[in-house]
């Protein structure tokens, strides 16, 4: 090219370099599913990234965001790229349970701590060598299940039917409920599976109806939580229907309408924030988060966004501790960060209070869930 073009290219390059932001010291990779089937979960998570802390103590923090389109292969590719090219110190994500399970081996090999806002407990339980690098910012299924089973025992439920999604989320729920039901003298009389893409679950609900259980648990997440419940109601089921925290979405109320009135579920306090007593430490955290999210995006966040916000809070506490042991960007820093995350005690977050231990990388206790009932198209605390 001519001298003139060469000069203008060099000038542009200098301007671009001068305008480049100061190098961030700590790099956090964020991978969510903003497109694809899991986008209902991934979009509020993506919108929470601007609310995460960009300055922790003396260190600046940069968040590198990637969308994996709900595809597990993409998740692995993006995480590998973030680890090798961007040299991230920690990873927040992926949004989907199968995506997170697929990535564990790679973050463990590279020694990068991962904070996974996913539903399945399989990412942290049972604890193995690779899973030592994974922390879960959602309530474990067994905490929710214990709350639900406690309510069932109180209501004198003796037989239970289950309709579960035919994927890792549903599988884990069937496993957890089978254990808990056996311990509490409840017999599971029917277990049916269905797919997210099913247009009708008539056959499955007929089978459950034929077994005539006292209560039915629907173990699904997102929109598919509505179909089995409305089908059961249409076919005349009169018993109590329970849902998991996967139904804790505004979509559940919108799609279910009158038919889901009276459903009982256990989920995060964010759904019933006005009714939670002020003495609950998480109430203020959650209200602040909701206000900040609403100011930025114009709509209220789903609880999935709060899981990413909690990851930010965990990192905010752990990074200064790790920075004292090593420089950001090094392998030692990441190992120290993992140790610091594991030592988190009594961290008040939007979903509850975290207490991590080497065996329990989810850290929730009973303060992390509330029993909620659907009344008149709204979430209400179950008294």
């Amino acid at each position, binding site marked *: 090219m001519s001298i003139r073009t060469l000069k203008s290219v060099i000038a542009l390059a200098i301007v671009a370099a001068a305008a480049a932001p100061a190098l961030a010291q700590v790099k956090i990779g964020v991978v969510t599913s903003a497109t694809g089937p899991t986008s209902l979960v991934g979009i509020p998570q993506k919108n929470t990234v601007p609310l995460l802390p960009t300055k922790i103590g003396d260190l600046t923090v940069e968040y590198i965001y990637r969308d994996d389109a709900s595809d597990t292969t993409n998740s692995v590719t993006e995480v590998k790229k973030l680890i090798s090219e961007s040299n991230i110190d920690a990873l927040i994500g992926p949004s989907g349970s199968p995506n997170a399970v697929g990535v564990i081996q790679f973050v463990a090999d590279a020694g990068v701590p991962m904070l996974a806002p996913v539903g399945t407990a399989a990412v942290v339980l049972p604890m193995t060598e690779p899973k030592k690098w994974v922390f879960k910012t959602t309530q474990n299924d067994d905490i929710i299940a214990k709350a639900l089973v406690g309510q069932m025992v109180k209501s004198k439920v003796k037989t239970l039917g289950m309709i579960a999604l035919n994927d890792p989320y549903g599988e884990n729920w069937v496993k957890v409920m089978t254990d808990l039901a056996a311990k509490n003298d409840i017999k599971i009389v029917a277990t049916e599976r269905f797919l997210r893409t099913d247009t009708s679950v008539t*056959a499955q609900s007929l089978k459950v109806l034929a077994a005539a259980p006292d209560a039915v648990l629907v173990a699904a997440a997102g929109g598919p939580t509505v179909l089995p419940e409305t089908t059961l109601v249409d076919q005349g089921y009169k018993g109590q229907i329970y849902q998991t925290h996967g139904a804790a979405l505004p979509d559940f109320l919108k799609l279910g309408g009158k038919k889901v009135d009276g459903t009982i579920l256990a989920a995060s306090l964010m759904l019933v924030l006005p009714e939670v007593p002020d003495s609950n430490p998480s109430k203020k955290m959650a209200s602040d988060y909701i206000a900040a999210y609403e100011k930025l995006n114009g709509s209220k966040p789903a609880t999935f966004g709060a899981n990413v916000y909690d990851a930010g809070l965990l990192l905010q506490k752990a990074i200064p501790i790790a920075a004292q042991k090593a420089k950001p960007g090094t392998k030692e820093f990441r190992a120290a960060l993992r140790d610091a995350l594991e030592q988190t005690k009594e961290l008040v977050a939007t979903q509850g209070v975290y207490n991590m231990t080497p065996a329990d990388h989810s850290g929730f206790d009973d303060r992390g869930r509330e029993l909620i009932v659907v009344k008149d198209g709204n979430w209400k605390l179950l008294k």
Partner: protein
Amino acid sequence: MNAQIAVLLGQDGISNGAIYALLALSIVLVFTVTRVLLIPQGEFVSYGALTMAAIQAGQPSAIVWLLALLCAGSAAVDVAQVLMRSERAPALRWAFAGKLLYPLVMIGLVYTLPLATLPMALQIALTLALLMPLGPLLYRLVFQPIADAPALVLLIVAIALHVSMVGVGLLVFGPGGASTTPLVDAMVEVGGVRIKGQTLCVIAVALVLIGALYLLSNRTLYGKALRAAAMNRMGARLMGISPVFAGKATFFLAALVGAMSGVLIAPMTAIYYDSGFIISLKGFIGSIIGGLVSYPIAALGAVAVGLIEAFSAFWASTYKEIIVFTLIIPVLLWLSLTSRRVEEDEA
């Protein structure tokens, strides 16, 4: 399993099967005339369902902007061809004026009408009016330039179009699902068995559409022209039947059938921007059973798929999808063993 459960399952299977039959018929129609395997057929279904839901919620659906964009693109391509003095340039007359005016009329209607309070028939008419033109527009922009390409190229382009339409669906409709109010809110008692009014409505509309397609292809000149183009492309061209017209007409019918199926299926369950694909895939199995040639066998095959799906969901719900999709294997084996090889007419 007693008689009552069998009847309920049969009812469910037949109403799903009716939708699959409609989709199977449109896939066979499009394939025989244009040799395009219409993978994006499912997207018309989900667009139809979500547009209807948006109209019922009173929101002016953003799909009207997609329509406007495609009309503008098609008009621009026409103008470019005239300016380049290409011999394929169409005369810029009424059709061109229509391409410019129709989206403006639609935008006006969508933003000024009280959408949520319209009678249901008008809401359905508006949904169809928004989505039916997408068929011929997509044919004009995507498939007409490659109309003579081998069938494999057309299939790959169809898959690419499907992927882009899913992405556009996410952009236009958002990630949330939606369902609509039932077309008919009644329960009918026939001999002690309760049948939902919605099921009867679905079957009735499916039969009407199938009957209309049959009458169209056998009793009208245009329909016979389409059949001729399906049987032998070169021969039809020699007889003065424009392959472009044939392509646009079949895509128009495919969009009509797809959008109507979407409207029918929306009250039954929540439809997401990506749920159309698996519905059309089951219709595709029906059309494979018909050998991608025969309409009645494709329709019966699709209804059989619906019934098998319902009954296998009852007996072995974990393996339902496996059973339904494994059906293709024996059908393909049987078809390949019994049919004679015919040289493909590269017209």
